[in-house]
């Protein structure tokens, strides 16, 4: 085999490996998703989406409050994590060579590795102990803390990949750095930034540990910022570790809803981003 043939063979082999990687990743996916689907689908009914939890032995219980609670917590978390993460990412991309930027980058990576329960303990000390009660706000805080490093680093990396000529062009036309960053660079990198936000969201949507000491859980419906609030992962966990079949079934249904919720959300976000991209280009 001459050298060209060898190179071509190598290329073909690598292409094959990449395809195999996709297949390999899809196997556990079908396994897991199929498992959740199989166990949870039969328990999904109208009651599940509209009723509160019922004690064991009483049929017709649901997880309506938990679903709303999860949505609420994600809103609170995103409300401060997205701005902080994106703007910090902008800073890292604009002033990336300074020593301070290296420090920020470093600490963001460290924060990403902190286990969720440690973040929960920290949020407990910060937002629960001083006021002596659990709250949705504390839960949102804990989740938001976990989102920040992912959003920050992805925003920075994606902004860095936007050609510098875009920034230079807008500066040459008289824009301030702020304008150049937020009106030109960020929209150019928006799809990637969106991915970062979605990855962060998926990360926190299924988290139980940080909520145990912050949002606690609530058997009843609540929308108050300063009261405990129910959430799907905690409710699923509580039911899963119980001995009752009915609760197990509901736990699987809850897990299915959770997966579906995150999935639908990411599909929606992708569609919106693509539309924004199209608008931006024309």
């Amino acid at each position, binding site marked *: 085999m001459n050298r060209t043939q060898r190179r071509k063979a190598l290329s073909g082999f690598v292409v094959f490996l990449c395809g195999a990687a996709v297949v390999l990743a899809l196997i556990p996916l079908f396994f897991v998703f199929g498992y959740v689907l199989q166990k949870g689908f039969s328990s999904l009914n109208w009651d599940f989406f509209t009723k509160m*939890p*019922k*004690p*064991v*032995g*009483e049929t017709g219980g649901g997880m309506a409050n938990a679903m709303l609670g999860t949505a609420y917590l994600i809103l609170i978390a995103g409300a401060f994590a997205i701005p902080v993460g994106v703007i910090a990412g902008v800073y890292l991309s604009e002033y990336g060579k300074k020593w301070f930027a290296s420090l920020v980058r470093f600490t963001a990576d460290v924060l990403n590795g902190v286990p969720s329960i440690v973040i929960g303990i920290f949020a407990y000390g910060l937002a*629960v*102990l001083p006021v*002596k*009660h*659990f709250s949705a706000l504390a839960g949102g805080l804990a989740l938001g803390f976990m989102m920040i490093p992912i959003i920050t680093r992805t925003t920075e990396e994606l902004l860095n990949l936007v050609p510098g000529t875009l920034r230079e062009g807008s500066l040459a036309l008289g824009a301030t750095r702020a304008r150049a960053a937020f009106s030109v660079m960020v929209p150019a990198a928006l799809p990637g930034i969106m991915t970062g936000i979605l990855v962060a969201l998926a990360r926190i949507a299924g988290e139980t540990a940080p909520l*145990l*000491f912050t949002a*606690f*859980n*609530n*058997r*009843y*419906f*609540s*929308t*108050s910022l300063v*009261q*405990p609030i129910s959430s799907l992962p905690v409710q699923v966990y*509580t039911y*899963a*570790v*119980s*001995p*009752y*079949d009915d609760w197990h079934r509901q736990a699987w249904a809850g897990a299915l809803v959770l997966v579906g919720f995150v999935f639908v959300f990411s599909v929606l976000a992708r569609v919106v981003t693509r539309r924004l991209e199209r608008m931006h280009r024309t």
Partner: protein
Amino acid sequence: MKPTRFVLGLSLGLLAAGVAMAQTTQINGAGASFPYPIYAKWFSEYNKLHSDVEINYQSIGSGGGIRQLTAQTVFFGASDGPMNDEQIKGAPGAILHLPTVLGGVVPIYNIPGVTATLKFSGKVLADIIMGKVTRWNDPSITALNPGVKLPASDITVAHRSDGSGTTYIFVDYLSKVSPEFKDKVGVNTSVNWPVGVGGKGNEGVAGLVKQTPGSIGYVELIYAIQNKIAFGSVQSHDGEFLQASLESVTAAASGAARAMPADFRVSITNAPGKGAYPIASFTWLLFYENPTDKARARVMVDFMKWALTDGQKYCAELGYSPLPKEVVALEMEALKRIKL
């Protein structure tokens, strides 16, 4: 702009809902996971009788309940093991322990081909957990179970990986019947297990035993029943081999009623008496004797009175043993200690 108006409307709606909710009294409690199902039932039934009272209980573990009660982030706590002296000293006020229901811990096992109910003596159980007895056909086990063909396979011990009141009850019993166990392992909600694998929660241990041939573990009675796992009988203080049941667990508590200390902090493992299952325990609700929030305290006292009487009838269907009448009488007296 349409979106802004929508968001504004939504927020106002939520705010209004929040204000409307403020009319009900919400009381938060936390603690043991073992009694969670019966507490959930009680709070729900009580809410049906008193619709303006919402008692919200979450199971974060006995130790967690004690800590949150001490930090006063919850109004009441719940624990499978009584607070020790150090914890009581650390609390900002005097705490009242009130037993609510009883539970029993059973040894579950999975031995392919063995369908009989195995008999265990305390010492044999301790030796297995310590890893001194390693095979199912060990003479100490076969001696107790003549007529059962036990294989020569290894014993895998499944214990709790998380701290738990169930562990506390189990090792409390083993320490009473085996001085070596007490010395080597000791009593706590979490111990240094000499051998074995750890499962998370009762469900985790049940799962491990169900999946691992030749394994033995310990769970609350209700988990063995619901998961349909074989569980053995244990030799009682008086020598009988008893399987845990609602009656045998309540029998363990009746004996204790005679010698009940004023603060109800008593261990009833290895209790003397006929039909008294040896690995049984109370589970307690914890309240401050002098609470600052008198309104909530009044509600909880009323709730306790209901739970100790009408509430007890819900125990059986959920797999818990009701309190013996003597203990209920003592508790009604003790409730007066809470300053309203």
